[in-house]
């Protein structure tokens, strides 16, 4: 299989084997500048997005800053 399953924001998602976090962000039509990513419970810095290759079952949280008090 060239495809593997990851969980993004609680939802099962398929990505191409070998995809990075940056690829995932593109696939979701998001912009890297606008989001923060937690990868299996740990935050990634932006320069790790391109170097972090996804594995089957990875848990990805894509978050952003919103209004808050």
């Amino acid at each position, binding site marked *: 299989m060239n495809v593997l399953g990851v969980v*993004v*924001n*609680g*939802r099962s998602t398929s990505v191409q084997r070998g995809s990075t976090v940056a690829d995932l962000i593109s696939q*979701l*039509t*998001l912009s890297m500048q*606008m*989001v*923060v*990513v*937690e990868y299996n*419970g*740990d*935050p*990634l*810095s*932006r320069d790790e997005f391109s170097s972090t290759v996804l594995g089957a079952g990875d848990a990805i*949280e*894509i*978050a*952003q*800053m*919103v*209004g*808050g*008090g």
Partner: protein
Amino acid sequence: MSDELIIGGRAFGSRLILGTGKFASNEAMSAAVAASETEMVTVAVRRVDLDAPSDPITAHLDRSKYLILANTSGAATADEAVRLARLARSAGLPPWIKVEVIPDPRYLMPDPIETLRACERLVADGFVVLPYIHADPVLAKRLEEAGAAAVMPLAAPIGSGRGLKMAAAIAIIIEQATVPVVVDAGLGVPSHAAAAMEMGADAVLVNTAIATATDSEAMARAFALGVRAGRMAYRAGRAPEYTAASASSPLTGFLAPIGH
């Protein structure tokens, strides 16, 4: 004669911190932030809605003007607060965090145990930590001892607008604190903010009262004036309070009785 607020080694010209939640639009938020003359604004961290992504709030805030203080709202435990803090830092924001750990969805009161735990870990992790707390003087002291850069006691339940309901406890916190005291939550009108400053608070944080005012920009300006008024009065040395009256006009009595 300068009167800057110093938190975590950084100086702020304004003693009003603005929350960015609940505004009618990003434009309304930006306008209110500008009108308030604040130098620190709070933001939250939330999952992107993958079906309807939108701009992050930070796209509408000039980071050269405002320190962006992320909060850990949404966290119900210390672990969750730590995760959110670290995630916020990964966005390239300065490592400042407003710690909120709130288990109760109705009154949104913070958990003292988990808040202290989260602060200890985040201080160790290099954060400048500002915990949001119930107005508990001993907890405030313990957080200070744990390395908190400031303490943020609530005036009243968040968003209630009821003013300084916890005044008696906040007064003790202010008297005992060696870090800045930021009165947070529940301030509904500028007079509440002014009263907090007159008591000796170092700053206030306001969100709902501005964001949900009919004219949020004008309300932001009003709060800015109120905070300055209260601070200035605190420094000017309040006249004592009396039970009886004291004439402001001379009490030498009337002119002579007529009828010679």
